C-alpha cells in the first residue's frame, strides 16, 4: 500500500515541475500533459480501464454531436440516463473473468479490474453524465476539458464527483498558499488513509465480506468500527485527491464537513459525500420535485436511485430505501414543526442537550447499520447481519 503512496510522491515530484515549467500562455499544453500522464497511469492500472473510460468518452462525444445536430434536448436528457446502463452490465457479466480471458496473462490485476468495475465505473459513469448534461444545457466544455474531467488521476478512483467545472480554468501560476495547502492536505490525507484507517480496521480483523463475531456487543462494535473505517478511507482519499489537484492549480470541491457531528439524517447528508449530495440535488431531487411536487417523495426516490448507483444489488437498494425514508421522515417532521406556533419559552439548555445527544446517537447508529448492511456480499448475509444485531 505504501508503495502506491511513494509512487504518488514520485509522480508528483516529476510531473508538477514539468507542468509549471510550461509558460502560462501554454495553458492547453499543460492540460494535454496532465491528460497524457493520467491516461498512461490508467493504462498501467489496466488496459481494460482505459478502454472503458474511452467508451464513456465516445458516448459523451455522441451526445455532443446530437446537440450540434439540434436534436430534441428533452429527449437527450432522458437518454443521458442510459450512461448508467454499463453499471447494470457489470452486475450481469462476470467482467473480471471476461477480461482475464480476453487479455490472458497480461490481465494480472484481476482484483483491480473488479474494483474498478464496482467503484471506478460508477464514478466514470456519473462524471460522463454530468459532462453530457453540461453539453445539453449549452454549457459545453472543450474536448480537452472534458477528457481531463474524465481521466484526471488525482480524483479518478473515488471522486470528489465533478463535471468539467474545476478543469475549465486551472490557475495560471502556482500560488505559494495553494502549493502549501496541497502538500498539507496530501500529508494529512495519507496519515488518515494509510495510518488511522488501518489502525481502526485492525490487521485483517474486520473484513468487508461479512462478519461472524461472537455475541451481540461484538456485532455492534464492529458496526461502528466498519463505519469509522469507511469514513477514514473515504475522507483520506478525498484529502489526497484535493491536495493533488491543488498542486496542478485545480480546485476540486470539498467532500466532507465533519459528518460525525450530525444530529439528524438530513444534517448527515449535508456533511457526508458533499459532491454526491450536489449531484443528487441538481439532477435528481430538484427535477423530481418539479415532476411530483412533493419534496418528501422526491428525496425518497432520489436516494433509492442513488442506492442503485452505488451498486445494482438488493442490499444497496434497501440502503437507498433506508436513507430515503429517513430523509423523507426528517423533512416531514421539520415541515410540521415549522407550521406549529413557536413556543414562547425555548426548551431549557439541558433538554436541548439531551435531544441533540439522542439525535446524534440515533443518526450515527442508523447510518452505520445501513452502511454495514449494504456492504454485505449478498442479501442473505445482510439479513443475517441485521438479525445478529439483536442476538438472533
Amino acid at each position, binding site marked *: 500500500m505504501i508503495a502506491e503512496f511513494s509512487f504518488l510522491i514520485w509522480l508528483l515530484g516529476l510531473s508538477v515541475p514539468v507542468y509549471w515549467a510550461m509558460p502560462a500562455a501554454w495553458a492547453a499544453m499543460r492540460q494535454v500533459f496532465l491528460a497524457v500522464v493520467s491516461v498512461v497511469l490508467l493504462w498501467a492500472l489496466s488496459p481494460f480501464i482505459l478502454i472503458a473510460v474511452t467508451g464513456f468518452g465516445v458516448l459523451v462525444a455522441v451526445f455532443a454531436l446530437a446537440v450540434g445536430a439540434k436534436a430534441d434536448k428533452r429527449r437527450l436528457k432522458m437518454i443521458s440516463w442510459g450512461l448508467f446502463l454499463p453499471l447494470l452490465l457489470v452486475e450481469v457479466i462476470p467482467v473480471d473473468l471476461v477480461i482475464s480471458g480476453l487479455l490472458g496473462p497480461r490481465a494480472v490485476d484481476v482484483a483491480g479490474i473488479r474494483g474498478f468495475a464496482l467503484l471506478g465505473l460508477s464514478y466514470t459513469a456519473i462524471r460522463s453524465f454530468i459532462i453530457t448534461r453540461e453539453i445539453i444545457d449549452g454549457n459545453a466544455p472543450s474536448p480537452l476539458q472534458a477528457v481531463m474531467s474524465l481521466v484526471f488521476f488525482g480524483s479518478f478512483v473515488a471522486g470528489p464527483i465533478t463535471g468539467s467545472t474545476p478543469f475549465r480554468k486551472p490557475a495560471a501560476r502556482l500560488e505559494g498558499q495553494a502549493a502549501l495547502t496541497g502538500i*498539507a492536505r496530501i*500529508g494529512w490525507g495519507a496519515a488518515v488513509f494509510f495510518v488511522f484507517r488501518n489502525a481502526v480496521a485492525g490487521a485483517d480483523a474486520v473484513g468487508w465480506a461479512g462478519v461472524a463475531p461472537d455475541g451481540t456487543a461484538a456485532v455492534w462494535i464492529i458496526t461502528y468500527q466498519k463505519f469509522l473505517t469507511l469514513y477514514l478511507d473515504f475522507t483520506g482519499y478525498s484529502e489526497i485527491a484535493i491536495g493533488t489537484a491543488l498542486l496542478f492549480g485545480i480546485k476540486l470541491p470539498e467532500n466532507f464537513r465533519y459528518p460525525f457531528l450530525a444530529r439528524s439524517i438530513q444534517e448527515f447528508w449535508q456533511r457526508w459525500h458533499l459532491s454526491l449530495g450536489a449531484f443528487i440535488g441538481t439532477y435528481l431531487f430538484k427535477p423530481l420535485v418539479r415532476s411530483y411536487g412533493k419534496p418528501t417523495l422526491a428525496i425518497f426516490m432520489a436516494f433509492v436511485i442513488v442506492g442503485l448507483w452505488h451498486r445494482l444489488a438488493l442490499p444497496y437498494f434497501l440502503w437507498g430505501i433506508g436513507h430515503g425514508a429517513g430523509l423523507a421522515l426528517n423533512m416531514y417532521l421539520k415541515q410540521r414543526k415549522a407550521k406549529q406556533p413557536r413556543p414562547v419559552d425555548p426548551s431549557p439548555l439541558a433538554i436541548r442537550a439531551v435531544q441533540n445527544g439522542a439525535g446524534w446517537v440515533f443518526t450515527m447508529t442508523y447510518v452505520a447499520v445501513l452502511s454495514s448492511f449494504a456492504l454485505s456480499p449478498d442479501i442473505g448475509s445482510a439479513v443475517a447481519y441485521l438479525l445478529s444485531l439483536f442476538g438472533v
Partner: protein
Amino acid sequence: MADDPKLPSKLITILRDPQTMTYVLGVIGWLIVVWAFPFDWSLPAYAEF
C-alpha cells in the same frame, strides 16, 4: 511570552483559522506518515506493465 495571559486565547484564535488548521494537520500528517513507514525513496518497481 510564556507569561502572556492572553496566550491561550491567541492560540485558539490561530487554530480556529481553517487555513492555519490545514497547515497544522498537514505537518502532523506528514510526521505520522514518515514515522509510521520507513520510507524507501527509491522508485517503486512498477515494471510489470
